């Protein structure tokens, strides 16, 4: 990392911007694999941003160079920690994506329960008025248990 008189190099600043922008774009996708890639890019962007916060310069060993020319070691230490954390979380998310593909044949993140209920009500043109305070449980046969997710791919050899 080189450094001009005024501040960090423009290249690094641009790199942060591009990484974060690409990461956010990918995060808006539905498939977990793309979200994962987005998180990796975003994480790297943030790590670079932290690195920009410290002063650049020579290796920070006592006696190796004048004190004013040394780089700031603290952001580098923080980035190391952050890299490890991002790595661990990425690995976990990868496992979740794989497991999700394994169980449902699909790694798409689906709408939540409420959304699906509202969509269903809208399709059948009903109003979601039912307050189940007064009537007995038999009056309302509708269940709110989550439905099984749809399966796109069926693997052979599994029933």
């Amino acid at each position, binding site marked *: 990392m080189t450094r001009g008189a005024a501040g960090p190099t423009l290249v690094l600043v641009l790199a942060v911007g591009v990484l974060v922008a690409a990461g956010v774009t990918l995060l808006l996708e539905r498939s977990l694999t793309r979200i994962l890639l987005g998180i990796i890019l975003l994480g790297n962007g943030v790590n670079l*941003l932290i690195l920009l916060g410290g002063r650049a310069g020579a290796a920070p060993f006592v006696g190796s160079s004048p004190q004013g020319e040394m780089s700031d070691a603290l952001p580098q230490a923080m980035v190391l920690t952050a890299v490890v954390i991002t790595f661990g979380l990425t690995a976990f998310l990868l496992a979740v994506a794989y*497991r999700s593909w394994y169980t449902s044949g699909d790694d798409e993140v689906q709408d939540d329960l409420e959304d699906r209920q509202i969509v269903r009500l809208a399709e059948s043109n009903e109003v979601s008025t039912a307050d189940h305070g007064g009537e007995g449980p038999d009056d309302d046969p509708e269940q709110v248990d989550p439905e099984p997710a749809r399966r796109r791919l069926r693997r052979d050899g599994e029933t």
Partner: protein
Amino acid sequence: MSGLVPLPVVVPLLGAALTLLLSGRPRLQRSISVLCLSSVLVVAAVLLVEAYRFGPVVVQVGGWPAPVGIVLVADQLAALMVLVSSAVTLCVLLYSIGQGRGETGETAPVSIYHPTYLVLTAGVTNAFLAGDLFNLFVGFEILLAASFVLITLGGTEVRLRTGSTYVVVSILSSLLFLSAVGLVYAATGTLNMAQLAGRLDALPSGVRLTLQLMLLLAFGIKAAVFPLSAWLPDSYPTAPAPVTAVFAGLLTKVGVYAIIRTETLLFPGGQVAGLLMVVAGLTMVVGILGAVAQSDLKRLLSFTLVSHIGYMIFGVALSSVAGLSGAIFYVVHHITIQTTLFLVAGLVEERAGSTDLRRIGGLARVAPMLGVLFFVPAMNLAGIPPFSGFLGKLGLLQAGVAAGGTLPAVLVGAGTLTSLLTLYAASRVWNIAFWRAPRLASTTVPARLPGLMVGATTALVALGVLFTLAAGPLFQVTSNAATDLRERTPYVRAVLPRDVP
């Protein structure tokens, strides 16, 4: 005495390592987890007494002096939080042990449950005790990583769907927090909170406001404050009952704690008080309206959780001693009560086969004890006198009235309305699930609940009632803590004895 401060973090971590090694011997594993959390409870109690009598207890990790090294600080607020959270985690652990004995299917990967649970506890206590912004981040990451494992426990399809939402949202908030940390360092050249208190004051107000809003955004997602709360009711209810209970009780409160800490120590002066009040009011009202519309007990409780976060944010926004004191009292009360209610929801599921209000009924006749266990914390949550929920809300509303002005007055109204609607939601559950003709969702449920599960829940209900009896001393502690927070000097002087700003 300062040697005790790292123990609430270190003991659970060591316990996690031990339980991981002993994964083949469940009995030993259980005793180690219980022993770890009990000792944390004792240490936390000692720390609170110490902090109350002599001021914040500080330890410099590794012997490095304060601005350079990392400090762990147990002031009254942190010690109180550690105490309550360790009491709650211990009860939930006992509950989950009871559940593990009662049934076989749910807790199959039990060997991974205990280590992860202990790591979660270590993360929570680390976040409470951190005296350094980056250490706070690390604490958050520890507890988040553990919570990811717990929320997808078993790896079923439903848990993965809801779990992946939770994981992505949490990682996003962590990245926001991390970039805020990076920018704070770039602006001030330090991350030690005591030193930041002085240096942030010297920054131009625009930069200061930007940093404050970034941190608030990150903590707001974690604390599930209204526009950022949509992830919570979707992801919590599907996890196993003890996991949901401990998440609901603790994880959002860690976010609230971080908001209290940053708003008082780092950014005093109430620059964003108006924003916080609007957000608090919306959180209360929108959250409770969501709860009223739910027909599943666990989802309903998740919405009340979101709603009542609003009370705490309201107290922080007032930023008077009375407001902060009320907010801290409310955090303590709400950690206990919300956890209890989720544990009761777990008991209902165990006894009736479902928590869906349309499929169950008449539980008060079938299981009278369960009825009592639900009724007391539900009324406590709704704020019926003489329970602590009433005292906490009263303290906050009084502080709001004392502050004067239009916005606090509106918030007092919103708080009262939320309290009434909580009562409506709670009594609706009572009417549907506990009165009427007995009806169970499943015929294969056990007639008797495991004693340890009922015992742990009873202990938490009793703790909730105890807050009423001990409300005087507890308010004494919270108002002392609030005074210290407002003054800032006790904290700063304890960490940096030499240069007080």
